[in-house]
């Protein structure tokens, strides 16, 4: 997980929302600390993702990490991709409208969406692209292949796909 994580502040709310949707599927128990963890992540993305080298004197010796920071890091390029799709489709620059339309692509818990006049869903190709981006990013973060696939599936599952 040594690759530097970059983050566009403008997309933080979208990243956060998509990460919540993914965590609902992947690790719902972590949602109870989601806000604090996301706040820490955006302050120091690299630090929250890196495993500490300290070996505690009277500890267990475990490496128990929340998956939340990794999910936030994985969905960040995905959100960028979604923004670019919506921008291309609507000929709009990044702004409230685009964000609203991107947000409309997220599959909420009850499966509804709220934005009007927006692209209703990703095409199959676009969904495969999302899956590939998430999978690659997960591998870059040092996540195992098996877990990376699961997370990539969870990310795709978090957005609307046509058909």
């Amino acid at each position, binding site marked *: 997980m040594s690759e530097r994580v970059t983050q566009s502040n403008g997309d933080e709310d979208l990243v956060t929302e998509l990460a919540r949707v993914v965590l609902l599927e992947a690790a719902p*128990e*972590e949602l*109870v*600390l989601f806000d*604090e*963890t996301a706040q*820490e*992540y955006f302050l120091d993305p690299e*630090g*929250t993702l*890196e*495993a*500490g080298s300290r*070996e*505690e*004197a*009277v*500890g*267990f*010796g*475990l*490496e*128990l*990490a*929340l998956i*939340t*920071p990794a999910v936030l890091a994985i969905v960040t390029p995905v959100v960028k991709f979604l923004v670019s799709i919506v921008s291309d489709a609507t000929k709009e620059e990044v702004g409230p409208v685009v964000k609203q339309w991107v947000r409309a692509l997220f599959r909420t818990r009850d499966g509804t969406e709220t934005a009007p006049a927006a692209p209703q869903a990703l095409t199959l190709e676009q969904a495969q692209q999302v899956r590939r981006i998430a999978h690659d990013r997960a591998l870059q973060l040092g996540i195992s292949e098996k877990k990376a696939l699961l997370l990539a599936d969870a990310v795709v599952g978090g957005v609307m796909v046509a058909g």
Partner: protein
Amino acid sequence: MATLVPVPAPKSESVACRPSVLCYPSPSAVQFLVLLVALVTAGLFVGNWVHNLAVGGDWQRVVAECNGDPGTWTTSDPEQRRQRQVAFDICTSPVERRRAAFSLAGAGVALLGGTVALLVAPRRVVRRRKLKPLPAQLAGCQDRFTALAGESGVRRVPELLMGPTKLRDAFSFGVPGHYQVALPRKAAVSYRSQAVFDPLVLHELAHVARHDVTYAWLAISVWWVLIPIMLFPAAWSMATFDFSILSEFAWRALLLLAVVRVVTDRLLRVREHEADLTAALPSGGRARIRALASSSRAGDVSGWRRAIARHPAPALRAAVLDDPARLARPTYLDGLATAFLAAVAMPLVVGAVGPALTGTGAAELTRLVAALAVGPLLGASIGVGLWRASVVSRISSPVGRPWQVSVGVGTGIVLGDLASLEHTGTLSVSGTPDLGRLALLAVAAVGATALVAGVGEVWADAAPAARRPPWAFAMILGATVFTTLLWSQAKLGTSLDHGWDNMRRETQLLLGSWPLAAVGALLALFALVGVIGSQPAGPAPAWLVEEGDRFWFARPVLNARRVLLLGLTSGAVGVAVMLGYRALQGAPVPGVEAGNRFDLYVWLAAVVGAAAMLALSVGVPYSGAGIALAASPVASLTVMVGFLVLNTALGGQPTAGLVAEFARPALALGLLLGIPVAAAALLPITAQGLRFHALTVVVAAASLTLGFVAVLPRPSDVPPADAYLTGVAAPLLADATAVDAALLKLNSDPTADPAAIASRIRADLLPLLRSMEARADAYEPTDDETASVHAVAVTSLSTMARAFNLQAVAYETGDAGALDEGRRLYAEAMADWTRWRVAIAALSSRTA
């Protein structure tokens, strides 16, 4: 008699027996204390060093004044010399006590600093790791934690904190009465998970319940505090360009800090295993903790990093959970590390207690106090480890002879003695250690360990009859044996410097005492109780079995009657030797020769006791040395009875006083000789039954006693001049060569400034001269001729020491008058020395 190889009980339809290794206190707990003592006593050295820096000049002035006219020391009247020594001690006691106070202050600073660091550590940990109380939405986590704390028997529920996202591992910290457990967020949100949360929290609660938190953090705190304390002398030496002791100090300090670090981490790894086993106790806990421990990343390192890892390798954690008996086997490193740290501390305590007791009339207690400060911890650690291994092996796989841990103790005690800060610049002029003393110390330490292991085997045979684990007896026995070892070697250390004959005489005088005889009797009682309670068959005691059948490795045992018989047999051989000797030599001349004959018989009784130890250690695998602890006094006392019968038959009176006069040194010396001899228990010899034992006893007793009588010189047979030339003059002349070499080295450096010259005189010359003085003082001439010759040597050495001391003071203070006086005294001493050499030459040519 059947073979003594362990025979497993039938295992058909049995459930594998899982030993409860936690039924004994962990040796690692005591090892932590040894480690702390080693760290704190390092502060003694620094305190003494600060003393020399601050008021060393005043101390030297007072000591020189108290020393007075060296001529007053050369009297041949022992009583006058004793009175002179008492007066000197009283005169120097104020400055000596001040020196002791500095030393103790150094230790106090280390301990206090470590304690303060321990108390401050929790706040620092909370601040630096950004730990916070659990948020309200994780109330369920707190509830589950409290419930698990109740199940694990922790008296006061530790405070539960949660770390930031970066925190990935749970850990415990805090101080007694207010422990805290920090959880990573993943663990906190997984509080419903029996697979993660429960074993993780139970493991941490086990650390709290077993006081690991205090041990670990105190050791770490003192270690950190000690670094600046140890750096002070080194920094000062460099700042003042006085490098006289820097290298000797630096390697010792670095070695101590490195060893302490490695030992701390090793102990932490052991405590992790024990916390795992504790957390595995609840139903279903073992599988869960095993799965979690196997997934850990900490400790999964190789090479040198393995030595400083604070967690065991995951595979090893799983293996110990599967087979807890693995944890109960003491290793070479256990013995090495514990003995090293104890031996490092012992001379430092002697160096601090000695000055504190100067002039009190209790200076003789110095080495006893030091042995009591270190020996019980070393012995308790070794004792409880070996006894636990013995009893656990009865229901799991048998263990071999404890040669690994024994050799570890023998090696560690020698290395620790050499590396002790107290010996900085004082080993000898040439920098070479006293190899004879160290070799004896090593063998005695190996023997002491084998002895403790032997009694542990005897008591393991008695375990089925015990209602609870006899760990307290293991600690008491180990503490007694090792305190005796350390005390006696410290007392003998100076005697060895004065030759074999002096050592024999001083050993009898100094160590043939009632307290030591009482220790011998106490140890014999320990062994006898074990022998009486020994049972050849199980079932295993309930306290030893965690789960499964109470399966027991049955082992034939020697009963008390046979042990007594073997002791009597060995004693009978000694009596036969005594009678033969009396028949060959005839009656002694009343007076000195009769006294010497009595001493000879006392030593004979002691050697026969040691012979019983040797025979049983070799003849009875595993428990032989322990059994011999009961048989050895029987053998010695049998010789005593033989002596009393002989004496009475020849017209003597068997008074109570005579019995006491014989029994006291015989039992004490028998124990002292028996300790190193017990090392023979480590030899891989398999016994063949009682006949074999009896034959071994007879052969060992006969060969040892006959050999002893043959080599022991009878003082009346050796001409006084010969004895003086070989026993006193030759060693003094050898030491004089070393003095010449040191002087040559000093004079060959024209660039040395006055401070450096003074420092070299103190470091290189004075220790050797004082050693020569002590050697000369210890000799008691037996005729007028050697007395007159020897008086010249005593005068010369005393004057020479005073001359160099005065010159050192002169170089330090720039006092030209003192320098002139020092040179005058040196010339005077050399004139005496030349006179003595001429007299020696004359004596030598006449005896030739």
